[in-house]
């Protein structure tokens, strides 16, 4: 059975083209169902970075291309220059790499694995695609557990949260003081809050936006001059104002530290020009990271992900080999099934012929005869079955299947 992948991704298509064929899960499921109605196996994977159709069956490529053109509508002609088409082993390896996050914009990103799972669940897979997608999900999980590709942060806000965790560990119950009510600061604070921290104080010069933020996070609203008074209670300070001068000085933090009884203070300054006095970092128990520090951490972490990607590729390659072996074995499966059916037919026929003699046996003895004859058949067929599967992994699979069909007269039976 032919396996085909037709699709496009961020590697080959700009967003203007990708958005034409980007589908919500329900529509992706409809596309799969339509192809399934034609007797094909189909799964449609559509994310913001890719839309891919995995189809297996007769005329799979042609039908997948037609389905894609239907999706694109008027943009069909433009799409044909960027569409990639892969078959069998290539298509399988591609899906395994996608599930492992190796084909993503940020190597190892975690969201794609869930998207592959959703596409698989909403699709119309048959035996081939079912096996392929389950293997891809397995490979994705394996890559994430056996390498550290997904452990390091890929954005400034997640780097800030990861660094805070290096200081405090569990962030649950830790209090955040947010200085400035801009979007960037809010994102960083939210990243911390998503890990359990509590946005407890919001201080800003622009009262309107600060009030809205404080209400949303159920935080205390502070005038910017009162920040110092809350430093003793806060664990993390996130600052991102547009103020041209320093908002928080070293001596202010030093005086607040006296009442903290040694509890560390983690400060994130993502403003340019900087809001927080760089000298704060020199204070014992204070850890101040500005935008350059955070970006350096992200760059290093992305480089680490790329290094880990090499190990992940090896895992994916091994999984792809496993899938290819399974797929190749499919070639000899009909011959094996026919052979076993033929043997079973002979066994049952011979038992029926001996019925008059078997009638004198007790029920227990009869069961023993059944069991012994079954074991003889199984043992005789075991080695030929194994050898055929081994041959299937090479180019001799079809030859072996033909030979078995000829030797045992399976082909004559069929005709």
């Amino acid at each position, binding site marked *: 059975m032919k396996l085909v992948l037709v699709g496009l991704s961020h590697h080959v298509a700009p967003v203007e083209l990708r958005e034409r064929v980007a589908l919500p899960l329900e529509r992706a499921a409809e596309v799969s169902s339509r192809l399934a109605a034609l007797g094909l196996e189909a799964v449609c994977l559509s994310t913001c970075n890719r839309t891919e159709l995995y189809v297996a069956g007769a005329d799979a490529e042609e039908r997948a291309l037609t389905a894609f053109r239907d999706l694109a509508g008027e943009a069909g002609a433009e799409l044909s220059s960027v569409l990639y088409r892969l078959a069998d082993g290539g298509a399988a390896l591609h899906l395994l790499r996608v599930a492992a996050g190796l084909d993503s914009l940020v190597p190892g990103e975690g969201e794609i694995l869930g998207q592959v799972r959703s596409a698989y669940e909403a699709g119309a897979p048959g035996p081939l695609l079912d096996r392929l997608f389950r293997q891809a999900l397995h490979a994705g999980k394996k890559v994430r*557990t*056996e*390498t*550290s590709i997904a*452990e*390091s*942060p890929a954005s400034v806000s997640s*780097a800030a949260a*990861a*660094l805070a*965790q*290096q*200081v*405090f*560990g569990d962030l649950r119950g830790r209090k955040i003081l947010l200085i400035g009510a801009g979007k960037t600061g809010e994102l960083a604070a939210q990243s911390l809050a998503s890990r359990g921290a509590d946005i407890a104080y919001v201080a800003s010069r622009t009262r309107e936006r600060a009030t809205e933020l404080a209400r949303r996070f159920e935080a205390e609203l502070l005038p910017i001059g009162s920040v110092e008074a809350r430093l003793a209670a806060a664990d993390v300070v996130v600052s991102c104002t547009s103020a041209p001068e320093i908002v928080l000085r070293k001596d202010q933090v030093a005086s607040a530290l006296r009442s903290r*009884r*040694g*509890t*560390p203070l983690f400060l994130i300054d993502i403003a340019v020009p900087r809001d927080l006095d760089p000298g704060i*970092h020199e204070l*014992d*128990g204070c*850890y101040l*990271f500005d935008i350059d*520090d955070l970006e*350096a*951490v992200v*760059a*290093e*972490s992305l480089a*680490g992900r790329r290094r880990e990607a090499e*190990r992940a590729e090896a895992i994916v390659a091994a999984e792809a080999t496993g899938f290819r072996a399974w797929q190749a074995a499919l070639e000899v499966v009909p011959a094996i099934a026919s052979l076993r059916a033929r043997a079973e037919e002979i066994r049952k026929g011979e038992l029926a012929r001996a019925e008059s003699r078997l009638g004198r046996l007790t029920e227990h003895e009869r069961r023993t005869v059944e069991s012994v004859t079954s074991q003889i058949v199984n043992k005789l067929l075991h080695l030929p079955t194994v050898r055929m599967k081994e041959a299937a992994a090479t180019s001799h699979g079809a030859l072996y299947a033909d030979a078995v069909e000829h030797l045992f007269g399976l082909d004559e039976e069929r005709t």
Partner: protein
Amino acid sequence: MAELLFWPALVAYGQAAVAYFGNARYPGVAGRVATWGVRIGWVVQTALLGVQAVRADGFPWGTWAGSLNLFVWLVVSAYLIWGCRAPYRLLGLAVMPLAAALFALARIGGGTAAGARSHYSNAFLVLHVGLVLAAFAGFTLAAGLSGLYLWQERRLKRRAAGVLRLRVPSLVTLETLAARTIAFALPALTLGILVGLARLRSDRAHLDALMVLTLLTWVVYGLFLLLRYERGWRGRRTAYLALAGFALVIVVRLGLPVTHFS
């Protein structure tokens, strides 16, 4: 029998130490291999101690090498309580090579053989040696945690770009665990010292330099707890204090063969 158990335990500890190095470079499988090495080594060493206990005439770890054998077992036991969890695997890099080396040293000194004779009474040795060694094992682990704290704190202070590459427990966790370990170990040391002093009095003997050093160790760790829990000392200062106490522990341990087992 003891011989048969020593080598597998040493190999397991050694393998764990090597795997911890591998884990520092490529976290993951090597870390799990190291953890199993520690577990298997500990089980085999426990069996070795069991054989020694059954075959000994009296307390089997009354020699400096024997006490070193017991000390290694106590350190690994304390490490096993939480050290095998993934975030603490870096601590294994400090603990397991040391454990393997000391275990080998214990064998060179004859501390892993079965059928040893002891001229001390069992009750005194079980209490004195057992408690002091348990306390020292705790202080060793606290020193490992404090060392890891200082290393991690330094990375954060240097704002190293690769600070997230090798994940270790957070500063707060390391500091709290070191303090708790010392809080458990110090009462053991206190009791061990009291038992020793009681025997000293009954023998009408005098304090020697090593005993004074042990008392000084007690003072340092007592100060650690006082400053941390009463004065709110945290971070680098308490980490250095824990390491200073551990330096005294090393001196005391090195002095043991000369003063107590000569």
